[in-house]
């Protein structure tokens, strides 16, 4: 276990998220064990690992989506720009505006494309139409969706294809200008072409946003991420630059997983 920790802590300049001694419990059973690592700013970090290893549980801690689950408790800390997000005085609403999230299943609201994008702004109280219009165009362009939907912004988002819906969800997350975007297996329900689209988009967003992406797809992780963390049964097994993790993994378990011997 000590060995693990040594491997996990690698030096990162200007980390945006610092995870320290994070333990997470569902009632009596523990799901995350002593996680310690820093996530770099404006980079793409991939979380890989077999199903049930705690990847999703972990990223849901960062915007405190886990608050919605009864009987869940944590110890340790996650610092966002140096401030502990588990602090009582922290405003969850504010946190979630800073940390956007895209889910596995694309889930646009049953509203128009336009209203979907500005949902975050509307609930934030923005009503000026020029600002909203501008945000819609900017976000949709950023999500590489603008050219496909610019003529039907006021049509229902339910008429979009699966890949378009997922990009709309990304646009919706971008619209509130978050610092971090969490992506929970954003491509697992999409066909290869839409997946390629999203991957291209993620590469494009790299350098501007901090992206933490959970994925089952090893190739995807190696293609799009700068850093990769390998979780196994709630523990951080290996963490480092993606190139290094995929070419010369330190741990046997990492190698076995990457080469497809289990998982």
């Amino acid at each position, binding site marked *: 276990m000590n060995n693990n920790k040594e491997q996990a802590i690698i030096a990162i300049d200007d980390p945006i998220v610092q995870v320290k001694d994070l333990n997470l419990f569902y009632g009596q059973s523990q799901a995350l064990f002593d996680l310690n690592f820093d996530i770099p700013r404006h980079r793409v970090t991939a979380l890989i690992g077999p199903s049930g290893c705690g990847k999703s549980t972990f990223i849901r801690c960062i*915007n405190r*989506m886990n608050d*919605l689950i*009864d009987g869940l408790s944590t110890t340790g800390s996650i610092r966002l720009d140096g401030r502990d997000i588990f602090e009582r005085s922290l405003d969850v*609403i*504010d946190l*979630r*505006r800073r940390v*956007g*999230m895209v*889910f596995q*299943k694309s*889930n646009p*609201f*049953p509203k128009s494309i336009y209203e979907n994008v500005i*949902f*975050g702004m*509307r*609930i*934030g109280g923005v009503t000026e139409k020029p600002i909203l219009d501008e945000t819609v165009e900017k976000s949709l362009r950023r999500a590489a969706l603008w050219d496909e939907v610019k003529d039907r912004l006021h049509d*229902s988002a*339910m008429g979009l294809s699966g890949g378009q819906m997922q990009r709309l*969800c990304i646009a*919706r*997350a971008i619209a*509130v200008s978050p610092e971090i975007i969490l992506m929970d297996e954003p491509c697992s329900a999409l066909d290869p072409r839409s997946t390629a689209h999203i991957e291209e988009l993620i590469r494009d967003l790299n350098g501007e946003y901090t992206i933490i992406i959970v994925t089952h797809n090893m190739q995807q992780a190696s293609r799009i991420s700068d850093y990769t963390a390998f979780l196994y049964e709630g523990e951080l097994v290996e963490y480092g630059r993606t190139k290094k993790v995929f070419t010369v993994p330190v741990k046997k378990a990492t190698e076995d997983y990457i080469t497809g011997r289990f998982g």
Partner: protein
Amino acid sequence: MKKIVKNKYWRDGEPFVWGSAAALSLILILTFSLLIVIFKNGIAVYWPSPQLLFEMEDGSSYLGEVVQDEEQPTGLRHQLKIANRDLYGLDFTWIDAADIKNKSRPEGAVVLERYGYGNFHGFLSALNLPSLVVDHGPPWPRFQAALAALGPEIAKVKESKGELRALNHRIVGLDKKIAQYHHRGDDDPATLLPLQDEKGLLHHEFDRLVADLEALETTLHQNTALFTDATGRQQSIALTAIVRAYQPNAMSVFAKTGLYLSKLWELFFAEPRESNTEGGLFPAIFGTIMLIFIMSIFSFPLGVLSGIYLREYAKEGFLVRLVRIAVNNLAGIPSIVYGIFGLAFFVYGIGSSIDQAFFPEYLPTPTFGTGGILWASLTLGLLTVPVVIVSTEEALGAIPSGLRESSYALGATKFQTLVRILLPMASPGIMTGFILAMARAAGEVAPLMITGVVKLAPSLPLDGNFPFFHLDRKFMHLGFHIYDIGFQSPNVEAAKPMVFVSTLLLLGIVVLMTSSAIILRNKMKKKYAITH
């Protein structure tokens, strides 16, 4: 080989498919036969049927319309509506087909609808019109001209009756004021005398109007027409007693259609006559719709809010489960139990307290401490609230959790998520609950019978007298009307057509209200449907 076929037969569940199809067909057949019976009987009531003159072997003769035929061991027999209750005592009679000597359709047969004693069947023989100026000519056109000339006179009578009602309202108002002063112990003649004087003046005016009215009515009553019935007996009938007169055997299809439409108009917009078995149903239609509206105003917000709390805010646990079971059980309680609860809680509990607090001067005459449309609506509201709660809860529960999460992830509070995402999406489901609740409320009679419905309400719960909404008033209701005329009427045969008409009307109202709600729901569904 045979065995395999048999196995396939059972494996595909053929008997099960047939069984389920049969069950559905049975239900469809039952529903449609109910609708067809009601529709056929209800729709034909106002179509004028031909008047047939039957001359019998024994020398008697009958003029009337055939209501139904019946095969008896002794042979075929017809039921005739012969009307003329004042002459024969009964409106209906049975005749054996074998005893009929001669059957004819006399052109001159007249049907009179009267304000009393039901219809009259006969032939016009003479006119006596002392106070009406009508051109001379053949009797029937002259008779019709006389009826037309009577119209404005009757309008005058109605007008002065309206004036009398208004005067009466003012006198009652003064009485209440005086009662209030007495109740406060304020017997100061300075305040009471002017009131007494005013009341005296009003009474004087009232008496003068009554005298005028009586004089007018007496002159009008002198205009009579002499009719002969099938047996040759003569009957003099005042023109003022006649609602409508027509010769069905001489009428064209257009004339019959005109008559039909005028009767429909009467049905929808006029007051009932002859202990509700004739005339219009306006007060009952009005009462039914108003009841449902007031019920909705109370029941829907209450149900939706409770459903929201139960699903979104209450912490799952023993208590919430208990509440949920209780709500589900409430939906299954017999409606008469709600009626009794309404009587005890609303009428005797709240109503009496309101009377003691706000209207003590009128006691022991109750104002709110007796059945009324408000209490009946509230009782129905209680009855339908579980339906709304359950449907709201289910509609909210059916929304995919991903949508809530995305909303929260964008920084929305629980309330914002509820208002902007969940409620619009749940609205079609909630509407379904409304529709079920409305349909149930429209069909309930039992709880109304003890919380304020009456056979004949003197005034509507909504009228031009301040404060316009009189929620303490008793009201009429189509469902109760059906029960009342169908089973409590002394003249069941005569009331039968009205039972069908009322039933058809009640069904029509329910269909109208629910289908408009369904259209609204489908619009919402289209708007908020999610596809994945």
